[in-house]
């Protein structure tokens, strides 16, 4: 009967819970390449329970007592906080003990660094501080890798918590390479000039030795589609081959041939040789443009672990930029196609201008000493 009643008042606490924050440790970790830097904080109260700090047993823990216990605290943390990168251990190197004031009291604060000996892509953290003394103790983790911050609650029944640093980082890389691709097609005016040289006549038909406007939008659209698709297919293939180091061409050669390709495409508009299958020109030279794109990518480097994804992103960026140009220019060209100005001035003289610019590039790239 007495036992029955001993907890009576406690039962009523259900509604006003015993307060005070439960016991928390704070773990901060920043991953940079193969190294991790961060800190561990444990409440001084919890440190006392874990290793015994109050040397004179007066119920008060002083700074001197805590400092005197530093080696034992370090040892305790080494036993209870374990970091590893893909099963390679990252031993913690602790720096000098400090303290930090938090809302619920004073915390022992130990900054650390750790070297995993390899790029950390997946970090595993086993946190078992106080698990035999207070199973409700938790480690509150803030993990930073690049621009991505993750938080997690460690401890309790869970064994090791595993954090993939690439899943979020990959997305960041994806965006970065997509942007690089778009930017490259915009700033890399040689690719655009080549494409436009092939597209300018797409709104015209060659009859004998005269240009005539296409009567309906459909054939013009199909012509554009074929050229763009052929160019895209070709450069995507060689871009991938080069970016993945399967095929390599000297950049001087590819850059020169790219310039030459523009001259050929532009001259073909003035002295038409190939009129019905410009898509083939687009494909053939597109192969070389792909190597040109690859040289940009080589400068940026592909992040290990996300090579294919970044390559895809870069390629998608190029197609996006290219599509934007085509969608902007072609309706204008289509609208102008019936004018004498377009057929007699813009197409021939514009192409001549493009050819001369490309000639300058060709001379620079192929004949002048590099440097």
């Amino acid at each position, binding site marked *: *009967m*007495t*036992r*029955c*009643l*001993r*907890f*009576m*008042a*406690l*039962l*009523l*606490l*259900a*509604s*006003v*819970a*015993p*307060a*005070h*924050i*439960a*016991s*928390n440790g704070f773990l901060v970790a920043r991953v940079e390449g193969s190294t991790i830097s961060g800190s561990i904080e444990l*409440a*001084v*109260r919890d440190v*006392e*329970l*874990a*290793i*015994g*700090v*109050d040397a004179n*047993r007066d*119920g*008060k*823990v*002083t*700074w*001197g007592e*805590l*400092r005197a216990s530093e080696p034992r605290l370090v040892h305790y943390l080494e036993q209870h906080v374990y970091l590893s990168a893909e099963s390679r251990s990252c031993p913690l190197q602790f720096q000098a003990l*400090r*303290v930090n004031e*938090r*809302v*619920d*009291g*004073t915390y022992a604060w130990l900054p650390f660094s750790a070297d995993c000996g390899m790029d950390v892509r997946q970090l595993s953290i086993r946190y078992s501080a106080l698990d*035999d*003394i*207070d*199973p*409700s*103790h*938790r480690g*509150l983790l803030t993990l930073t890798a690049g621009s991505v911050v993750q*938080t997690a*609650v460690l401890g309790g029944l869970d064994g090791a918590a595993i954090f993939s640093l690439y899943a979020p980082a990959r997305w960041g890389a994806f965006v970065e390479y997509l942007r690089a691709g778009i930017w490259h097609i915009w700033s890399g005016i040689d690719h655009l000039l080549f494409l436009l040289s092939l597209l300018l006549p797409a709104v015209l038909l060659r009859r004998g030795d005269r240009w005539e406007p296409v009567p309906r939008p459909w054939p013009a659209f199909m012509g554009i589609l074929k050229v763009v698709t052929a160019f895209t297919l070709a450069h995507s293939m060689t871009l991938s081959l080069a970016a993945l180091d399967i095929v390599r061409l000297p950049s001087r050669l590819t850059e020169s041939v790219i310039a030459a390709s523009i001259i050929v495409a532009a001259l073909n508009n003035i002295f038409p040789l190939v009129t019905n299958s410009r898509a083939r020109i687009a494909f053939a030279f597109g192969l070389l443009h792909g190597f040109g794109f690859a040289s940009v990518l080589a400068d940026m480097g592909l992040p290990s672990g996300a090579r294919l994804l970044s390559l895809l992103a870069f390629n998608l960026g190029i197609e996006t930029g290219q599509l934007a140009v085509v969608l902007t220019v072609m309706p204008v060209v289509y609208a102008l196609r019936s004018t004498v100005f377009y057929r007699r001035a813009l197409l021939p003289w514009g192409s001549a201008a493009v050819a001369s610019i490309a000639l300058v590039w060709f001379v620079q790239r192929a004949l002048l000493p590099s440097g």
Partner: protein
Amino acid sequence: MPRSDAQVLVELPAGARHSAVETRDLARSRLDVALPLSQFYISRARATGDLRFLGYAEAILNPWQSRVPLLPEVLVLHATILQSRHAFAPALTELDRALRVQPEDAQAWLTRATVLRVLGRYDEALESCRHLAVSADAAITALCSESLRSLTGHLQSAYATVAALGQQTLPPEARAWRYSELGEMAERLGNDAEAERWLKAGLQLAPEDFYLRAACADLLLRHGRAGETLQLLAGYESVEPMLLRSVIAHKLLRDGSSEQAQARLAAAFELEQLRGDAVHRREQARFFLDVEPQPSAALAAAQENWRVQREPDDILILLRAARAAHQSQAGEPARRFLQQQSLEDARLGAATL
């Protein structure tokens, strides 16, 4: 950084010393050490309002929990810890395990009644009270069932019965409990003067009873008696629910002296949320209603609280939050519950409807 080696970083509360490590080790192999030690930690949690002690008690019980044959005392203590953390479903599971081994365990039935009552499952709670009759004192059984009847349409008669229940017929440990029940019933009847008398009488008997102190503070705050609230709570501010009420009192007085305390509360709620604990959602809702007005955050906390527990105060907070957020339909679950149970509460009229 501390200025000198002599600077005190922390004062250790009794029961939180490393020197207990030998006793703790002994508790792994000896049940006659484990039981009183975990009971000691639970009573420390009760007296100090410090959640860490519940963890210490849990660690002591851990190795004994899965012993075969089952140890009902261990299971009941574990259930007590769980329900103090508002983990009500696991608490019920432990109690049912205990009762299968020892069907007449009065403490288990009483704890079960308490948990079911907090969950608003009054019929089942009443059923648990009836089981008490076999092994417990008649006055205890009456207190258990009358307090439940007061929530299901028999407030007036239950109040009369419990008031007539002589204090002397109850064992000393149950006397403060009777006062708190009487205080609550009087409040729900709208008789705040009597309620205050009961609650204060209870506090005389059990000054460390946070439940009673909080109830008393809430009553005073409802009447805008901020100064008296501060007096009542003086010295108890280290316990967050007490601190919350003290901050509300300071707000009422507009004395602008509670900013630090406010920050401490906000940080505590944030940490709790980060951990995924749901222990103080009701307090959190109250914080966002009465301290830092953020009606939508208050409603979110009150709704989350409602998913966990259904005491009269939980009804009150959900209705208040719904009204503050101008989302009357969000209070619908509470209104439906009131109707189903024919629960009477005079505070509802004034505060929410």
